């Protein structure tokens, strides 16, 4: 490459690179807590248990088959005995028993399928897991809502706080602030635990982390295998690259 070409390439690169972090800065979205993800079998199994017990009654994961859970170290028998309430065969999809029309009547919206929720909720503000981790820890009591619950990250959410017996009940603190245009607006300042649940705050965060790890895994089962395969493929391609370079050089010896 001539010097000029390099300059062009560098200019393009600088512009693009400079753009990436700027995007994150200018986005005035909510701040998300970083999800402490763990992909060991024990955590994922715990997450699967929570998902089946607390979420599957409303949300399906219709792209996931029960027997996919063998990938996180469960046997078919264990899956059948401990996790399957709504299906008979392990090859079946994780469907929800709730009828969508009923759900719409009760919550105003049908609970969405959660198969790829961890991928869908990613944004410049953070990964989908970060969003979920924040979401599941920010429910608070709000008597003006039909379910009695609201959420700091998802205001006006149609979902009740299904994990409240674990986390306990939070209440929101509001402040009234000038929005910069002379209007006074009520802003949420923070959440306070007013009635403890069966878990301490740290224990609850850990359970949510397991659940979110599971939801992330569910978004693309086998993503670690994909990455480890990647190293192998790159190794093979690198060898091919070197060989083809040597071949090219051998052929081009006599071109001057």
């Amino acid at each position, binding site marked *: 490459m001539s010097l000029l070409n390099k300059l062009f390439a560098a200019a393009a690169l600088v512009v693009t690179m400079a753009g990436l972090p700027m995007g994150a800065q200018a986005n005035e979205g909510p701040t998300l807590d970083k999800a402490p993800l763990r992909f060991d079998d024990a955590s994922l199994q715990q997450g699967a248990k929570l998902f089946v017990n607390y979420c599957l009654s409303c949300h399906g994961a219709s792209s996931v088959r029960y027997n996919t859970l063998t990938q996180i170290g469960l046997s078919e028998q264990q899956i059948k005995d401990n996790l399957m309430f709504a299906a008979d065969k392990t090859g079946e999809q994780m469907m929800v028993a709730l009828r969508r029309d009923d759900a719409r009547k009760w919550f105003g919206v049908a609970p969405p*399928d959660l198969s790829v929720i961890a991928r869908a909720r990613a944004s410049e503000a953070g990964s989908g897991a970060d969003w979920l981790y924040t979401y599941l820890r920010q429910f608070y009591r709000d008597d003006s809502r039909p379910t009695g619950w609201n959420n700091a990250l998802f205001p006006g959410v149609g979902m009740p706080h299904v994990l409240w017996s674990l986390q306990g009940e939070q209440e929101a603190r509001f402040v009234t602030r000038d929005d910069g245009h002379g209007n006074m607006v009520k802003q949420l300042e923070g959440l306070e635990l007013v009635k403890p649940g069966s878990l301490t705050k740290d224990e609850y965060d850990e359970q949510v982390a397991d659940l979110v790890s599971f939801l992330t895994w569910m978004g693309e089962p086998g993503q670690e295998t994909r990455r480890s395969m990647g190293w192998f493929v790159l190794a093979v391609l690198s060898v091919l690259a070197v060989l083809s370079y040597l071949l090219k050089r051998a052929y081009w010896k006599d071109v001057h």
Partner: protein
Amino acid sequence: MSCCKIVTEKAQQVLGWVDERFPLTSTYKNHLAEYYAPKNFNFWYFFGSLALLVLVIQIVTGIFLVMHYKPDASLNAAGVPVAFASVEYIMRDVAGGKFIRYMHSTGASMFFIVVYLHMFRGLLYGSYRKPRELIWLFGMAIFLCLMAEAFFGYLLPWGQMSFWGAQVIVNLFEAIPVIGPDLSIFIRGDFVVSDATLNRFFAFHVIAIPLVLLGLVTAHLIALHEVGSNNPDGVEIKKYKDANGIPLDGIPFHPYYTVKDIFGVTIFLIVFAIIIFFAPEGGGYFLEFNNFFPADALKTPPHIAPVWYFTPFYSMLRATTSDFLPYLWAFVTLVAGLTAWSVRNVWVRRLCLVLVVGVYWGFFGLTVLGKTKPLFDFAILGIHIGRGFDAKFWGVVMMGGSVLLFALLPWLDRSPVKSIRYKGGLFKTILTLFVVSFVLLGFLGTKAPGYAFFGLIPGGPVAAVSTILYLAFFGLMPWYSRLDKTKPEPERVTSK
């Protein structure tokens, strides 16, 4: 030994039999073994063969995707659209399906990266100039097909961005006066993007456009082999031939460039594999995050952005507001004025005048730069004489026109030399500005309209200035390419 001889003899006979009926040997010679390419190709010359590779990857992975994909917008038992669910089915339940899908989705973005670099090579070395105008025009047609192919394909996973992206783009056609609204319904096959739209986009994506694309690529290569490749020095190797009529600076494509291109392929595949195995979403640029939500006609996403490869042109559409039209008109007037001044032909001059007046009327009608009330107004066939056309319409014209401008390059470039190696500072500066504004436009197009760099420099004016710079690269080329202080071209190609 004798056995080998028999085999060779038999093979010769078979080949002879074929050659009497089909030009196998002569095709092989004309296009590979005795096709002479300049010996000084550099980095930028890898991207043609890489574009061919990506084309093959897209077709092969596409065939396997079609075996399992279902173009059906209705909801399944779980309340998920069948098309959306079928893509997840491919990702999870089809053997190797995940890699087939990621290869195809990454391949789409790589296709544009490769083709943009391939076209940039054309700008660097003047590859579009005589006698390669038709190679360039076939290339332009390929580029348009590629955009159509990507646009149709992006609807198929039936996610939120698929749906709303298609909705926004098809709605643009509504801005066309008189026929617009009917045209957009005709394209969708419905009043909104729906199952009918999904089915027809599927037909275009898997059959219609690929067929045209293959035909155009063949024409592109036939035209290339007719005139021969340009090279980084921009000089014709056919000017100096040896006694056998072989260009002195040419080498047979096979084996020299086949082995070189194979090396390029391995490097490309390394980059490709890094994306597929480690970052298949490409940071949300190759697979947009929002597209993992199934399409929902009742939930408009807060920010609808087309995929990155459309954003430079989309940005120019957005920049074309009614506030921008006066600047645009000034620019048109400048180019028309320069043309009238330099072309000493009374008809050309009259045409320029008509253009300036016509564009003024189209932009502002019978008002002062659109700021006042029209002098009078009545409508013919739904077009208001006093008001001109909506800025939205001009935005659409801008988006289409900014792509098509590339096709004019062979006739805009008046430089005495082809290659940037022998061009002067003026051209190099303007080309750099062009590249920077193209990248800025692309970046801004991925952002919401209110975006500001560092929260300080508003994106709107940056996009407006970049749009003018983009247009100036083409519009003023006839003059700056002549003013530019070039260096003399060498007679023969120089070694790297």
